[in-house]
């Protein structure tokens, strides 16, 4: 009898989580639609509705030519990219924090951001622009840096989390130094500013081509991590306990790291290095929805997407010159994190 009652209670729990996911999804949609209206060129909501209707009915309105261009070629791809990057970085943060049993881990722990950053800087140095070659080099070096980290770890037989983190620090410092070297030799008139702006992160001047480039790796990564989400709980107990619970911690960890790396490299390729999101969003979600990775991963990605769209909206609307988004995520993220941390009474 007692069991029967409790069963009903746990079913309620599942329903509650489904409701929360639905609410977060609704929030994301609302935020995305709102950010289509907002910008230097003001477009009225009814105009946006007309434009979308027009697209679906394959009609075009001569009075809204400029608005149509701004909505579909400028704002829509930008909002979608921001949402994808926010979702990607947040789910990676949540996953890696679980894998490394440490809530202070962020997506760049294994060196992927510094590697991808170096690749982009190299691309700008070689081609003097942020074209396809730069993006390709960025993605390639992002993947390469994590492979280097993993190969350093394999030297040690007992692959404990500490050796992953140390290997990540080694690889990060090498690529950071190489990036500095490129900055040093880059042309100060033209290349150096674009390297620096690129490294600060931005969604400016993104179009559907950029979206096409990142949508596959980020979605595949998110799906992969979501599929592994429950196993991450068990990894977070440590290798020996995971093994004693009958699973193979090494294999699942490598799979999760590879999915995370693909996502992060694609994010950096699309928008430069954007910090704090992958650290702060999982923390907020742990406070709101609990620590269990089954719910933490989907909630983190949805909330992360909304957060990034909002911050990007602020980045292009606060001042007439656009603020690099990496600066804003830190400026908003850090105080927010301090607030949560103090409310948690120091308990991480």
């Amino acid at each position, binding site marked *: 009898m007692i069991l029967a009652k409790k069963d009903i209670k746990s079913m309620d729990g599942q329903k509650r989580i489904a409701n929360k996911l639905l609410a977060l999804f609704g929030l994301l949609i609302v935020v995305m639609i709102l950010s289509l209206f907002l910008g230097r060129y003001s477009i009225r909501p009814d105009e946006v509705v007309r434009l979308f209707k027009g697209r679906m009915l394959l009609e075009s309105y001569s009075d809204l030519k400029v608005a149509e261009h701004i909505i579909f070629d400028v704002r829509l791809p930008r909002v979608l990219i921001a949402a994808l990057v926010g979702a990607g970085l947040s789910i990676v943060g949540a996953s890696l924090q679980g894998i490394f049993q440490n809530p202070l881990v962020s997506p760049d722990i294994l060196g992927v951001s510094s590697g991808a950053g170096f690749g982009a800087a190299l691309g700008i140095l070689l081609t003097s622009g942020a074209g396809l070659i730069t993006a390709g080099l960025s993605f390639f070096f992002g993947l390469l840096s994590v492979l280097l980290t993993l190969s350093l770890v394999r030297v040690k037989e007992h692959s404990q989390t500490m050796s992953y983190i140390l290997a990540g620090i080694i690889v990060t410092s090498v690529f950071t130094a190489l990036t500095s070297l490129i900055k040093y030799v880059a042309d100060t008139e033209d290349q150096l500013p674009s390297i620096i702006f690129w490294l600060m992160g931005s969604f400016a001047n993104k179009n559907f081509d950029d979206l096409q480039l990142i949508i596959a790796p980020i979605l595949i990564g998110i799906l992969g991590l979501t599929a592994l989400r429950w196993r991450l*709980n*068990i990894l977070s107990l440590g290798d*020996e306990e995971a093994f004693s619970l*009958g*699973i193979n911690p090494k294999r699942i960890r490598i799979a999760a790291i590879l999915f995370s790396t693909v996502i992060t490299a694609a994010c950096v390729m699309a928008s430069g290095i954007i910090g704090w999101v992958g650290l702060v969003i999982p923390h907020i979600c742990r406070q709101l929805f609990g*620590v269990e990775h089954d719910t933490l991963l989907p909630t983190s990605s949805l909330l992360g997407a909304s957060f990034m769209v909002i911050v990007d909206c602020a980045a292009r609307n606060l001042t007439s010159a656009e603020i690099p988004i990496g600066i804003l995520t830190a400026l908003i993220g850090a105080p927010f994190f301090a607030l949560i941390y103090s409310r948690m009474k120091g308990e991480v």
Partner: protein
Amino acid sequence: MLQVKGGSFGYTPEKAILNNITFTLKEREILAVMGPNGVGKTTLLKCLMGILKWQSGHSKLDGKDSSEARIKIGYVPQAHQFSFPYSVLDMVVFGRAKYMSVFATPGKEDYRIAKEALEEVGILHLSDKSCNRLSGGQLQMVLIARALAGEPRLLILDEPESHLDFYNQLTILEIIKRLTKEKKIACVMNTHYPNHAIKVADQVLLLNDCKSVFGKPIEVLTQENVRAYFGVDSAIVRTRILGKEISTFVILNQSLSENEPGGARIEHKIVC
């Protein structure tokens, strides 16, 4: 049911920490592994679970090599804080992982089994509490329930009663004893308390650097063995309290050998 034959293991090739361990354990029996600190008690448990591989010899569970029979072994680690404060029910459901495919999440049946395990150890009312807000005794129960949720044939416990008060020590021991008898499983536990071994264990394995003895508690924990393995003088006293015959292990003094007159030794060394 559990057979260990000639099991040896060393972390370095030069020095084996476990040497030629041999014993058999039947269904419904509890084995207490005893020995001084650093002698390889935890290493032995890890070898039994297959976390570490025997360098020679083997251990078999129901006739199968224990690394293949991993799914039938439930492990209860020492109670510790977790990086993330999972709820008690979530923690116990983790015990079902070995029956689930990589991409699966636990279903109704898994939750039902987890709740049964919680009821078995008497803490179903703690289901929704966070694991990091439990007392040491409660957390130990959660870990036992988690192992039970995996429906083991062999239960391995690493010092289950350490850091607990008298009352909780007894509770844990009683639960272990009851489960072993009722669920028809075998149980291996490390302990530092001879009286606990006498109270619940059917067999004792006494370990030291190069040798081991195996047998019934009273027969193994003799004056001579305890002096040789721990360097402590002791006695087992039989008394009658409230009409009940009770055997109690009493620790007397650190034993002194003739060549070290008057000096109390900090470390006891056995000569191989």
